[in-house]
């Protein structure tokens, strides 16, 4: 029971108090450039959730069952990057074969995820914090859902802004996105201390 509570705590923490986009400020590049429309944002978000959870589930055993027993922790960075790249390639291959329509709609997002900082960051965090396997997967799920939540909220706001907007020329695009992001981040600060990770 306490493991379950522990896992729920991790999940909530990654959504609210330790949100990887708004607290850690990771995964910002796609956050800023892809939060213009809800469709784009949620598409990217779903792809990110897939990849983050998959790579965390792969990297954990690779680190703890292969690298640690052979005392090769040193190469964990490079190994993680290769796993991530390989997973994304694998995912693309599988989708091309079995779900071509879905793959077409994901379009360029899939390859872009390889370089999204949060994929690597989640794997690194779970190792540094020495999480167990289940905790790592829940952490990965929570972090990626948290990121998706942030980017979709941003997209919703940006869509509305464009309708109302008498946005000054220099602010259009990244400028106004940053300001909205700042306000949301400010709001999320209010969650600090609700749960401790």
């Amino acid at each position, binding site marked *: 029971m306490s493991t379950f509570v522990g896992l729920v705590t991790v999940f909530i923490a990654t959504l609210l*108090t*330790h949100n990887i986009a708004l*607290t*850690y400020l990771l995964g910002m590049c796609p956050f800023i450039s892809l939060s213009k429309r809800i469709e784009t944002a949620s598409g990217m978000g779903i792809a990110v959730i897939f990849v983050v959870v998959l790579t965390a589930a792969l990297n954990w055993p690779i680190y703890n069952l292969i690298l640690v027993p052979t005392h090769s922790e*040193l*190469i964990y960075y*490079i*190994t993680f990057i*290769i796993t991530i*790249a*390989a997973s994304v*390639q694998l995912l693309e*291959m599988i989708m091309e074969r079995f779900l071509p329509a879905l793959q077409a709609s994901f379009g360029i997002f899939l390859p872009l995820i390889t370089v999204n900082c949060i994929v690597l960051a989640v794997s690194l965090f779970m190792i*540094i*914090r*020495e999480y167990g396997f289940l905790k790592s997967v829940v952490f990965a799920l929570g972090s990626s859902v948290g990121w998706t939540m942030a980017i979709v909220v941003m997209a919703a706001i940006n869509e509305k802004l464009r309708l109302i907007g008498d946005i000054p020329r220099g602010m259009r695009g990244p400028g106004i996105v940053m300001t909205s992001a700042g306000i949301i981040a400010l709001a999320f600060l209010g969650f*600090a*201390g609700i749960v*401790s990770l």
Partner: protein
Amino acid sequence: MKDRLLMLLFVLVCGTVLTAALVAVDAYTAPMIARNEELKLKRSVLAALHIPFEEATIERTFADNVTVGNAGGTPFYRNAEGIVAFAFTGSGLWGPVRGTLALTPDLGKVSDLTIIHQEETPGLGSRIAERSHLDRFRGRSILPALASVAAGKAAADSDVDAITGATLSSNALVGILNANLAARLPELKEATR
């Protein structure tokens, strides 16, 4: 299909070459890094036990003034007055936090605290390693456990003010100290009876 396999092959070759370079560099630098880490620990223990030292003679000062004991397999350190210090480690917000915690001889209060390593947000969370924050722990009761409270709100004996704007890192430090204390206090009590 062949395309992708070729790609995978390239990645593996590239990865192997770079890994070999990394391993070579690591083998070369590992002894120096280990020595630096040992010096850092000794410096930190001397500071936590309030034993003055000079950079050039750290090893000698340590050997002369610190008694190293063993509690449950891991070392602890004592100075002439009976202050007990041990190394703590745990996860901060971004990365591991390591340091030395020194307790009063009755193992009930914090005597001092130093941080050897942390990777918190520079300028914000990283301030947990600054003297001004560490001093807040002095004299605080560790029973039943330390508590991190909002800046300025410390009331009970075991309360410690957090750093405004660095709540998560401040809480993490207190959490780490409590976890390490929970694990080591019983053994320390045994070993110092």
